[in-house]
C-alpha cells in the first residue's frame, strides 16, 4: 500500500548544507518538473540523514505545483508485500497499473530488493514504463546502487542513466542549523552554547542528533532552570560515549576530552583536534565524493571504499589520484575499444579500476582479433584496364573515387554482367587507394564477408569481427547481390556502412544488377547503395577484347600474330572471361601441336572448321555485315552453322 506523505517532511523543514546540497537541488529539480530531468533519481545515504524526508518533500512540492499530479510514496517492503497480496488475489495487473500510472513514484529503501529477483524484474519493468511515459521515479537506498547485493545489472544501468546522489553526514554548521530549527519547531529555548555542544557529539545521523535534542528538552522541562552547556554535556555525554555509535566523520566529539577545559592546553587541544578532524575528514569527504561520482558513472569503487574502511598505506590524496589515473586509463582503453566496436567498449572490464591490466589484455586480444581485413588483390590494377567508349564513365569515375576517397562518389557501385571486369575494377580501386593514400582497405567478396560473420557468430566474436571492418578506410565489397536473403549480414553491413560513411571512409560495391533490382536486398541497404554513384560496366567492346587478347598472347609468345589477334578480337564475347576462355582454347590446341597459334588453328578450334588458308575477306567480312545494319554483326555471322557459311561462300 502506498503511505501518505508525512506533512512535516517538506523542503521547508530540510536544512541544506554542504553534505546534502546536491541531493536537495536534484530533489527540487525533480519536484518542479517531474519526469523531465533526472529520471530515475536515486538518493542514497546512511540511515537518518534525510532520504525519506527528501523523498516526501519531492511529493509535497510536486503536488503543490500541480495538484492534479498523482504521487505515490511506498517503501520497497510494502511494495513487495502489497504486490504479493494483489497477485494472490488475482489483481496483479490492477496493482501494477496503479504504480505505472502514478505521475511521481517515490520508492523508499530499495536496498531491500537484494536477492528478490521477481521484485527486481517488476521494478525494472516499472522503471522502463515510467521512463517511457515521462513519469518520474525516485528511489532511495542506504547504499549506492552498485553496492546493493545481487542488484540486477539492467536495473543498475537504468539507475546510472538517471542521477545518483548521496547525502553525507551533515557538517558541524549544518548540525547546528538543524538543531536550531528543531528547537524552534518545539518552541524550546536553550542557553547559548547548548546546541553547539549537541552538535559536537559523535552522532552521525540527524535522527540521533534530534534524539539528543529531545533528551535535553526533556531534562530542561523537568528542571527549574535552563541547562547550560556544561550541564548539557553531562546530560548527553554519558550517552554519547556509551552508545555504540561508529566514529562520526564530521564531528569534533571524537576529540579526547580536555582535562580542564578552562586551561590553555585544553583549549589548544580542542582547536588542534577540530582542525585535524576537519582536515582528516576533508580527504574522507573527498574520497566519498569521488566514490559517489565514479559510482554514478558506473565504475567500481571498491578500492575507495577500502580507503575509508581500512585507511591507506600512503597518503589518501595519492591513492585518490592513482584511482582517478586508473579510471582515465580505463576511459582511454574504452575509447580505443569503442573505435573498434561498441560491443567491446561496453564490456564490464572497462568499469573496474582495479582491473586495468585485465582491460589492457582484453583490448589487446580484441585488437589481435581485429587482424587486418582482406586487402585487394595486387594483380588487378588500373593499368591493365582498357578504356573504351562503353566503360569510359565507369573507369574514370572509379579512378576519381580512388583519388578522392570518401569525397568523390560514396558509395561507388559498379553494375554489370558476369565476367565484364567488375571485380578487376573494384580491386583496381582498392589498389590505387592503398598505393596513393596508404589506406587500410578491405576488399572481399560478399559471400566471404557473410561467411566471416557466421564464423564470428559461432565463436562469439562478433565484436572483434565488427572491429576488424570498422577501422578500415575503405570497404570494397564484390558481388553484393550474394547477400540476398542474408538478413544478419545485411544488417551488419548496414550498420558498418553508416559507421564508415560517418568516418569518411570510402565504400564501393559491385553488383549484377542495379541495387534496387536485387531481390532479397533490404531496401535500406539498396537505397544507400543507389544513393552513391552507380556505373554500368558493359560487355567488352572490340578494342577491349583486342587489348586483352594481345596481352594474353604477348604473355606467352614472343610475337603476337596481329592477324590472329584481330581474328580473336573479332569474335563476339559477353565478357572478358569469355575472351580469356577462347584464347586459352586456342593456346591449348597450339600446344598440342607444338606450334604457335595462328588464325587457321583458331578458326578450327573455335569454329570447328578445317584449317585453311587465311582469306583476306575474313577481316573484312564482319565489317561488311556490320555495314549492312546488324546490331551485333559478328555474333550474327559466327553463330551460323558451318554449312550455312559455306553455302554463302559458295553463293558468293
Amino acid at each position: 500500500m502506498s503511505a501518505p506523505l508525512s506533512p512535516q517532511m517538506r523542503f521547508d523543514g530540510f536544512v541544506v548544507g554542504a553534505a546534502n546540497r546536491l541531493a536537495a537541488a536534484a530533489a527540487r529539480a525533480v519536484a518542479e518538473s517531474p519526469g523531465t530531468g533526472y529520471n530515475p533519481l536515486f538518493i542514497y545515504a546512511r540511515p537518518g540523514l534525510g532520504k525519506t524526508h527528501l523523498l516526501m518533500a519531492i511529493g509535497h512540492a510536486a503536488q503543490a505545483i500541480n495538484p492534479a499530479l498523482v504521487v505515490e510514496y511506498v517503501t520497497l517492503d510494502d511494495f513487495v508485500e502489497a504486490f504479493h497480496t494483489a497477485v494472490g488475489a488475482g489483481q496483479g495487473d490492477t496493482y501494477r497499473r496503479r504504480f505505472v500510472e502514478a505521475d511521481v513514484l517515490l520508492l523508499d529503501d530499495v536496498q531491500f530488493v537484494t536477492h528478490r529477483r521477481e521484485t527486481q524484474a517488476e521494478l525494472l519493468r516499472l522503471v522502463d514504463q515510467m521512463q517511457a511515459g515521462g513519469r518520474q521515479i525516485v528511489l532511495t537506498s542506504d547504499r549506492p546502487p552498485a553496492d546493493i547485493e545481487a542488484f540486477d545489472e539492467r536495473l543498475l544501468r537504468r539507475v546510472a542513466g538517471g542521477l545518483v546522489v548521496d547525502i553525507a553526514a551533515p557538517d558541524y554548521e549544518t548540525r547546528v542549523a538543524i538543531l536550531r530549527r528543531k528547537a524552534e519547531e518545539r518552541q524550546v529555548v536553550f542557553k547559548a552554547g547548548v546546541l553547539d555542544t549537541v552538535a559536537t557529539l559523535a552522532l552521525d545521523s540527524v535522527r540521533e542528533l534530534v534524539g539528543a535534542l529531545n533528551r535535553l528538552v526533556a531534562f530542561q522541562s523537568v528542571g527549574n532552570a535552563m541547562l547550560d552547556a556544561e550541564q548539557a554535556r553531562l546530560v548527553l555525554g554519558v550517552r554519547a560515549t556509551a552508545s555504540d555509535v561508529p566514529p562520526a566523520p564530521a564531528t569534533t566529539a571524537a576529540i579526547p576530552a580536555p582535562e580542564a577545559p578552562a586551561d590553555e592546553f585544553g583549549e589548544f587541544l580542542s582547536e588542534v583536534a577540530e582542525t585535524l578532524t576537519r582536515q582528516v575528514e576533508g580527504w574522507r569527504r573527498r574520497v566519498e565524493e569521488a566514490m559517489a561520482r565514479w559510482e554514478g558513472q558506473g565504475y567500481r569503487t571498491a578500492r575507495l571504499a577500502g580507503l575509508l574502511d581500512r585507511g591507506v598505506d600512503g597518503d589518501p590524496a595519492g591513492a585518490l589520484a592513482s584511482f582517478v589515473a586508473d579510471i582515465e586509463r580505463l576511459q582511454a582503453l574504452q575509447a580505443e575499444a569503442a573505435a573498434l566496436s561498441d560491443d567491446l567498449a561496453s564490456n564490464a572490464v572497462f568499469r573496474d579500476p582495479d582491473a586495468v591490466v585485465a582491460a589492457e589484455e582484453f583490448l589487446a586480444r580484441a585488437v589481435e582479433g581485429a587482424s587486418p581485413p582482406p586487402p585487394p588483390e595486387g594483380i588487378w590494377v588500373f593499368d591493365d584496364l582498357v578504356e573504351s567508349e562503353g566503360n569510359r564513365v565507369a573507369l574514370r569515375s572509379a579512378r576519381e573515387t580512388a583519388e578522392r576517397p570518401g569525397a568523390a562518389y560514396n558509395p561507388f557501385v559498379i553494375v554489370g554482367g558476369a565476367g565484364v571486369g567488375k571485380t578487376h575494377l573494384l580491386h583496381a580501386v582498392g589498389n590505387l587507394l592503398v598505393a596513393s593514400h596508404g589506406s587500410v582497405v578491405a576488399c572481399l567478396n560478399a559471400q566471404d564477408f557473410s561467411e566471416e560473420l557466421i564464423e564470428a557468430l559461432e565463436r562469439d566474436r562478433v565484436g572483434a569481427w565488427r572491429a576488424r571492418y570498422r577501422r578500415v578506410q575503405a570497404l570494397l565489397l564484390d558481388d553484393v547481390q550474394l547477400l540476398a536473403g542474408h538478413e544478419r549480414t545485411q544488417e551488419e553491413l548496414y550498420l558498418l556502412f553508416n559507421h564508415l560513411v560517418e568516418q569518411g571512409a570510402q565504400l564501393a560495391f559491385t553488383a549484377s544488377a542495379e541495387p534496387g533490382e536485387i531481390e532479397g536486398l533490404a531496401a535500406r541497404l539498396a537505397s544507400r547503395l543507389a544513393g552513391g554513384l552507380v556505373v554500368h560496366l558493359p560487355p567488352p567492346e572490340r578494342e577491349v577484347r583486342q587489348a586483352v587478347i594481345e596481352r594474353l598472347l604477348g604473355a606467352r609468345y614472343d610475337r603476337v600474330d596481329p592477324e590472329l589477334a584481330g581474328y580473336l578480337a573479332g569474335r563476339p564475347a559477353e565478357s572478358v572471361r569469355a575472351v580469356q576462355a577462347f584464347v586459352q582454347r586456342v593456346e591449348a590446341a597450339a600446344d598440342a601441336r607444338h606450334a604457335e597459334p595462328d588464325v587457321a588453328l583458331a578458326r578450327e578450334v573455335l569454329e570447328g572448321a578445317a584449317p585453311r588458308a587465311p582469306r583476306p575477306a575474313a577481316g573484312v567480312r564482319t565489317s561488311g555485315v556490320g555495314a549492312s545494319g546488324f546490331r551485333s554483326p559478328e555474333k550474327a555471322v559466327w553463330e551460323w552453322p558451318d554449312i550455312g557459311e559455306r553455302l554463302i561462300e559458295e553463293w558468293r
Partner: protein
Amino acid sequence: MSLVNFTTREITCKIVYYGPGRSGKTTNLQYIYGRVPEGRRGRMVSLATQSDRTLFFDFLPIDLGSISGFTTRFQLYTVPGQVYYNATRKLVLQGADGVVFVGDSQARRYDDNVESLQNLQENLLAQGVDIRQLPVVFQYNKQDLPRDLILSPDELDDALNFRGVRSFGADCLHGHGVFETLKGISELVLQRLAAGSSAA
C-alpha cells in the same frame, strides 16, 4: 620527516621556534611545558650553557592523544639564537613542518630580528625549502616592556612580516600569546594535511 603516516595512523608535527638570541624561544617552550598535563608531555630536553643560554636546542614532545583515529604528537624545538650556532640551527630546522619566528620587540634588537629572519630564509633555502611554502607565524615577544623601549606588533609587522602571515604579540614570561602562537602555527601545519602528499 613525514607529517602524516597513514600506515601507522600517526601524525607528528615538528615545530621549530626560531629567532635571535634571547628573544624568548625557550621561554615559550617552558611555558607550554608548564601547562601541558603531565601525562601528555614528554621530558623537556634542554641543553643549556651555564648561563642558561641554549647551547644546542630545546625539545618538547607533546602527545595530543588520538584524534580522528590518528595518534597525534607535536614536537616543539628551539634553535640556539646566537649567531655562531648556525650549524645547529640548520640541523634543527631539517624536516620542520612549521616555524614560529620569535622576534624581540625591543627597538634596540631590531637589527638582530632582521638578521635572524634572513638567516632563517637562507638556512631553509639551503635545504631546498622556500619559506613561502612553509607554514610560518611571527611572535613579537616582550610586549610587556615599557612602550618607549619596544616596537608595536604593527611596526614589527611592517618591518619583518612583509608577506603578511599571522603574527602575535606576546609576553612569554607570563604566558600571554604563547598558546595563541602555538594554535596559529598548528592550524597552518595541520591545514596542509588537506594537501595530502605535499605535506608528507
